[in-house]
């Protein structure tokens, strides 16, 4: 029925199956929308946040999806600026994932703020000294760039492309895509960094505070670095999942392996940098404020040493070592293990840099504060996942996302 919309030369599942799939995921989406509306109408008392946890699950989700969506800017950077041409075969998908991640982040922010109708004050009355201002500006600008990168893809739909104006627009946008990609990369380096800066500048929070260079704390660079390292891993992971679900090979191994190799080295260097940062913080920064490292990892039911080891070694060093070795990235299982670990690692890092910062007592007579999100928070955090799955489903069905699909899956 919808065959006119499906790109030529590829096979898609029957419409009925597709609608059923949409309905199932859509139900989850609606649950999230319901929770979101509750938060908007009744206010943030619907959450389990409190005055100690002003930042909680949502801010973590924001930071995590932006880090995971980092594949878009870094792949774009590699493709358009560095000139890794093979990556054109995965850039579309990276852009789509990035688009989903960033739009989700903006949506979550719109729920998270107490006065959504005043949200635009962050631009209008901008305080240029605030990391959050930098985040908001770069995030929305980069989201515009991602939209610009996604539009030509939509216009390449078989029916849309028939309209001459759309065809020409898409063509022209492709022509100067490098300019957009460069701007996007520039913006991304900053906002990924400023997200790191959000916590890093908090000199009232010894667990999060880091020294740095000029106005930027070390976390600024670490966040950009880790997003560049782990974002592509997430792109690879989603590609692998898509391949598994559609039961088709969509991207050639050499493309994936190239991206995996670059990620591996990024991750390894990140591991080194993060280790140095942690060591310096533990031995110089924190003690100067009167804290031992053990003050941050003991005396509470959740945040133990395990979290430090898991984040840096298990989800940092291990995937890095897998990805830099040829055997590691050529083996399908170890590749998937590595990208999964890397994605968990970066998410865990963001969790630590948001939630654990709030949990650690600063005043000597204060206590550890623990937190578990309310169902409304969980639902609104799952909402973007459902939305992402739907958008990927539709995009994959109707748009030529994977240039190599036809070649890899010839229709007889």
């Amino acid at each position, binding site marked *: 029925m919808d065959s006119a919309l499906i790109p030529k030369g590829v096979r898609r599942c029957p419409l009925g199956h597709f609608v059923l799939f949409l309905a199932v995921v859509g139900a989850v989406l609606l649950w999230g929308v319901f929770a979101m509306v509750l938060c908007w109408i009744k206010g943030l008392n619907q959450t389990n946040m409190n005055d100690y946890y002003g930042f909680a699950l949502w801010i973590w989700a924001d930071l995590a999806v932006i880090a995971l969506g980092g594949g878009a800017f870094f792949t774009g950077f590699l493709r358009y600026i560095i000139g890794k041409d093979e990556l054109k075969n995965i850039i579309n998908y990276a852009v789509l994932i990035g688009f989903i991640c960033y739009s989700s982040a903006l949506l979550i922010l719109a729920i998270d703020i107490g*006065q959504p*109708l*005043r949200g*635009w*004050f962050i631009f209008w009355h901008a305080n240029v000294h605030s990391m959050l201002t930098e985040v908001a500006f770069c995030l929305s600008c980069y989201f515009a760039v991602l939209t610009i990168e996604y539009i030509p893809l939509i216009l390449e739909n078989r029916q849309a492309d028939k309209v001459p104006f759309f065809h020409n627009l898409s063509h022209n946008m492709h022509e100067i895509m490098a300019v957009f990609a460069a701007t996007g990369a520039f913006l991304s380096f900053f906002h990924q960094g400023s997200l790191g800066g959000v916590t890093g500048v908090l000199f009232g929070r010894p667990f999060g505070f880091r020294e740095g260079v000029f106005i930027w704390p070390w976390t600024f660079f670490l966040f950009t670095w880790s997003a560049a390292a782990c974002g592509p891993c997430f792109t690879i992971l989603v590609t692998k999942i898509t391949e598994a679900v559609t039961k088709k090979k969509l991207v050639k191994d050499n493309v994936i392996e190239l991206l995996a190799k670059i990620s591996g080295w990024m991750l390894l260097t990140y591991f080194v940098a993060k280790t140095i940062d942690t060591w310096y913080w533990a031995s110089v920064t924190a003690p100067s404020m009167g804290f031992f490292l053990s003050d941050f990892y003991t005396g509470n039911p959740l945040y133990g040493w395990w979290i430090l080891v898991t984040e840096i070694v298990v989800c940092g060093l291990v995937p890095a070592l897998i990805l830099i070795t040829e055997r590691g990235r050529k083996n399908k299982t170890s590749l998937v293990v590595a990208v999964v670990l890397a994605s968990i690692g970066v998410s865990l890092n963001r969790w630590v840099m948001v939630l654990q910062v709030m949990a650690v007592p600063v005043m000597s007579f204060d206590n550890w504060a623990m937190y578990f999100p309310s169902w409304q928070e969980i639902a609104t955090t799952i909402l973007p996942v459902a939305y992402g799955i739907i958008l990927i489903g539709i995009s994959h069905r109707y748009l030529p996302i994977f240039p190599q699909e036809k070649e890899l899956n010839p229709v007889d």
Partner: protein
Amino acid sequence: MKIDRRSFLSFIIGGAAGTALSPLPAKLTDDLSIWTQNWPWTPVPEDGEAIYADSVCTLCPGGCGISVRKIDDRAIKIEGMKGHPVNDGGICILGLSGLQLLYGPTRVKTPLKKTSNGGWKKISWDEAIAEVAENLGKLRSEGQPQALACISGSDQGTVPQLFRRFMTAYGSPNYMCVPSSQDSYSITLKLMQGAQASAGFDIENADFVLSLGSGIIEGWGSPVCMFKANSACEAKKGKVVQIEPRLSNTAAKADQWIPINPGTEGDLALGLAHLIIKDDLYDKDFVGNNTFGFDDWTDDKGKSCQGFRQFVLENYGPEKVAETTGIDADTLTSLAKSFASASNPVAICGRGQGKRPGSIHEFIAVHALNALKGSINRKGGVWAVPEPNYISWAEPETDAVAQKGLQTPRIDGAGTEKYPYTKSLLNRFAEVVGSEGESPVKMLFVSGANPCFTLPDTGAVKAAFENIPLVVSFSSYMDETAKAADLILPNHVFLERYEDVPPPAGVNKNVIGLSKPVVDPQFDTKHAGDAIISVAKALKGSVGSAFAWDSYEACLQETMGDKWDSLNEKGFVVPDTAPACEKTYTTPSGKFEFFAAGYEQVTIEGDEKWYPLILMPYDSMRLSSGFIGNPPFMTKTVEDTVLKGNDIVVEVNPLTVRESSALFVKDGDYAILSTPKGKATVRVHLSEGIMPGIVAMPTGLGHTAYDEYLAGKGTNFNELIGPVEDPASGLDAAWGIRAKLANIAS
């Protein structure tokens, strides 16, 4: 033009783009944000002229001057009155919350009559007065005026005195007041000094304060005055030693906290007396010239009697006292030395806020300690402050019915041979009235008191109230007693009415204050003084003629006489007569008398075998535990180690849990607390600031009346304890009750 799909789409897209580029979205966005800044459901307080109105707070007997900030006719903030002799600008947490009582949702807005199904019916004031008068008339015509009883929050001031006068004119002796440690002190002063006086403590000028459980900064006496005195005493490097089993705020602020086995405070006082006498450290001048009974003496019949000196030397040696009190002998010795070597030491007692009377023996022992150092009626000591005498009304004429009624014995047995000095024994009320059968009380007035919350064994008190055919409450609020009443004749709250404020409790300051209306009455309420005058007038006859005043205000003005003008202007007067300078003693010997016998400890209720722990109440400034229910602001400040959700939290030493075989709890866990009087589910807070074996429970929680900001929060301590009669005074001397803590499941 034919509209096809393409042109339609173009129209829509073009329109959308045009709208987006127009100023409309920007304008809407701006308007929406402005709307969020002026949400109609967020109140915007009206502005107006700001003025201050001075008055006196009557929420507790403290008698603090207040300045109420007003915007037009709205009172918006209560502040302490600068220059007032009691509080000089300071103010307590309850006084600050006063406006929540004035404008609060629990006020009784009109006279109410209970309907047969337990609901309330609004009635007019005329109907209410007529109804009360009719019932009173009936009782009187049956020749039973003594079946009317009255519970008043206090004995002093014109309003309580009007009620008392009414009782006399009507013919009932059963006028009862809510007791406090001041009653015990009064009896002590009567016994030892022969004075008809209340005790005032000059903490400010003392250089050593030995407090046997008195919460100097927990609301004991006149709270703000005591706070200031305590600060002044400390500023002058005076020492405060707090003796009690729990690390209260007073203990925390004191220079030294000495935990003591509860109930042995009297022994400690006598033990210290022993050490002071043994080392010859007492004030020989004072003891020699002004006291009687220190040395052995011979009575009229020639019988030789043991003196106080010999008595304590024989019976209260440090080893024995150390064992009884749990305070080691060295500490006792150094404590006795410090007390004796101070130039103005004072020993005080009356636990917590002093809301509960206590053992007279304990009070006498403590007062003897003061006498040993001559700290009687002198700077930094205990003063016998004479009861105010500004109310000098002519005795009411009584008719035959009244005379007959007045001759019947008081139902509570106060003032009898057994308890000659006790004015009323409200602790016996529940027992006397009983929960079934015919009640000796057929009609009850309650004014300025909430006995259904504040009296021990509250369950029995409530049952007694059920057993009284007609209860009339004069409460401004729908408190527990008002809820249990049949008729409510709501009084104005303190900010709406005139009232004289007698000298504050526990302070050696002779100040008379005047509480003035700061705002117009908010509802259809009536001054309790006016209400009782109206009732009397409606009864006519001798009762009516005993109340010749047109109104309460006229009565007050007449009573105050020449003081009225300056009272009205300044808000207070300090009578010229110096306070209690009578160094003369009106005892049989004409001297301060020591007692050398008795001194028994009060045995608390409960068998140690079944109830291995001791439950004790503790008072806090942040919880109003008396007649006034906690306003929302105060409840907000209550720590989560006192109240968590609707659960009361009790304090227990971790050792108590470790040594118990029945109790396995972590901090914050639930447990069942049971006493011979009742049971409650509580949460346990493990605290090092309490003696092992003791369970401490905050007072002032567990209201069943009032609003959602107070009702149902925690447990009322009074429901878990019953009164224990003091052998010397009949007053309630219970300082705790035996208790058991057990896990919920067991």
